[in-house]
């Protein structure tokens, strides 16, 4: 590592820190995009098997080159801008969708040292950046000047604002017990406790003491992603494809990339906040980045499983779940955790 630093300093001189940061960004974004491509493949295969079909199997062995072929096709297609669309906003909307999905990765730690920016308020940063993802959807719906797109945008705006509240409350519980906003600290705190002392560290991760919040976060996360069963913003049987009905080619692909990048982000955050991140579940195995990837894959599989299993929520049921079920649960559990931490039974010392 030191040799690399010296080599870089020799070549770029004073500009080396900037170049090094850019390199780190590329090292995260490139595998992320590859991950997105193969997540779509994985999704089609998994749902195919669940519905007793084969899934993609024509392009390459077992259809493995399918996502590359899809990407190439989308790159070569023309981007059609509707005549009455608001052109400027129509073009920047997909960029506004993908930019937060990538920017949030700046503070996601992979191990206690492998993180682009280890800042104190990283949890807040993630909440702020991901809350901006909704603009891409709203603006694309408005700028398309199409009623289906507009309906999708309205639904999505209302849904994301509602579920962000319960998501925020579940994160508040996590930061209360971790006593930190730093994601690295949040993981390290989960390695302490009675069970971790016995070598059963998976029982001292946040998912067990904060179990209701874990469930709320997972379901709100699915809703924030506009994934099935909360995909009323797309609702292909009701409003064709919702906000991106007028988009084609790479502009459409950007929405797609943003959705899947966000899926991977939510799975990474759930692993870090509630499932111990890179910590190994048992004492006799070493910690490592592999554990984080295993946990992320398990949660991603859960998202695909949801999509293959559940029918779409009706819009009023969705709002009811967000405001009348999750919000009261969060408020009550917030008080419970507060009292728990002040009582002699506190387990987070």
């Amino acid at each position, binding site marked *: 590592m030191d040799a690399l630093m010296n080599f870089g300093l020799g070549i770029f001189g004073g500009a080396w820190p900037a170049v090094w940061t850019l390199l780190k960004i590329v090292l995260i974004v490139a595998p992320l995009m590859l991950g997105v491509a193969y997540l779509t493949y994985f999704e089609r295969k998994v749902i195919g098997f669940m519905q007793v079909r084969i899934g993609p199997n024509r392009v390459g062995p077992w259809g493995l080159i399918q996502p590359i072929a899809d990407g190439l096709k989308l790159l070569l297609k023309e981007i059609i801008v509707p005549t009455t669309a*608001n052109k400027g*906003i129509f073009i920047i909307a997909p960029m506004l969708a993908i930019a937060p999905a990538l920017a949030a990765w700046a503070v996601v730690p992979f191990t206690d040292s492998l993180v682009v920016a280890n*800042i*104190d*308020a990283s949890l*807040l*940063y993630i*909440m*702020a*950046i991901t*809350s*901006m993802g*909704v*603009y891409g959807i*709203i*603006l694309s719906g*408005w700028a398309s000047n199409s009623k289906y797109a*507009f309906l999708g*945008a*309205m639904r999505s*705006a*209302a849904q*994301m*604002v509602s579920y*962000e509240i319960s998501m925020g409350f579940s994160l508040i519980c996590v930061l209360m017990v971790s006593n930190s*906003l730093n994601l690295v600290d949040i993981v390290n705190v989960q390695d302490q406790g009675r069970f971790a002392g016995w070598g059963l560290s998976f029982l001292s991760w946040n998912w067990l003491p904060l179990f209701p919040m874990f469930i709320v976060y997972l379901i709100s996360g699915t809703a924030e992603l506009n994934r099935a069963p909360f995909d009323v913003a797309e609702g292909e049987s009701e409003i064709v494809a919702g906000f991106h009905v007028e988009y084609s080619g790479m502009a459409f692909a950007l929405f797609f990339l943003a959705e899947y990048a966000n899926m991977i982000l939510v799975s990474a955050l759930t692993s870090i906040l509630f499932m111990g991140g890179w910590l190994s579940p048992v004492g006799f195995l070493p910690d490592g980045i592999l554990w984080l990837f295993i946990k992320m894959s398990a949660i991603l599989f859960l998202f695909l499983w949801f999509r293959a299993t559940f029918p779409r929520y009706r819009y009023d049921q969705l709002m009811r779940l967000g405001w009348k079920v999750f919000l009261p649960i969060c408020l009550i559990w917030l008080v419970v955790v507060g009292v728990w931490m002040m009582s002699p039974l506190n387990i987070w010392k």
Partner: protein
Amino acid sequence: MDFQTAVFFFLSAILIFASLRVITARNPVHAALHLILAFFTCGGIWALLQAEFLAIAIILVYVGAVMVLFLFVVMMLDINIDRIRQGFWNYLPLGALLGLLMVLEMGLVLGSKYFQIPAAEALVPAGISNTKSIGALMFTDYVYPFELASLILLVGMIAAIVLTHRGPKKSKYTNPNQQVFVKAKDRVRVLQMPVEKD
């Protein structure tokens, strides 16, 4: 000019441009988008001052929540710009006077000696998180103003609910007696329309 000053001027230029566009843009959605840009840039300037908590909070609250709802409303409105522009010159003197007054007040506040913090005191010592120190101050020295503000917010929330609450929904039921005695002419109206020809 060092790097920080250059970034400050860059952000300030964007902030001023965006704020001007908020009041000059003809399309209300464009105006709202420029307001979002202004909030975001404002967050950037605060981050430059090492006020990371405030910087992220303004983006989280204003960009992430308030402006989403605002945009939501603005998109649904059909605002006639020409009607709004009517009487612009009549209101200009009053508006200019108010603007001048606000500039004066801001100048007085910002120039007063209570607002001048020595650079040495403004810097947070290393190792202490910005968020933690703000939290500690909020719940010790400023606990009463803070609780008062939260109480006002609570009252606002309750007021909004009271204003829009329409009472419990009465259950719908049918009266079989009325249904039996309905005649076709009570419910159905036959209209005569001339044939439309192109």
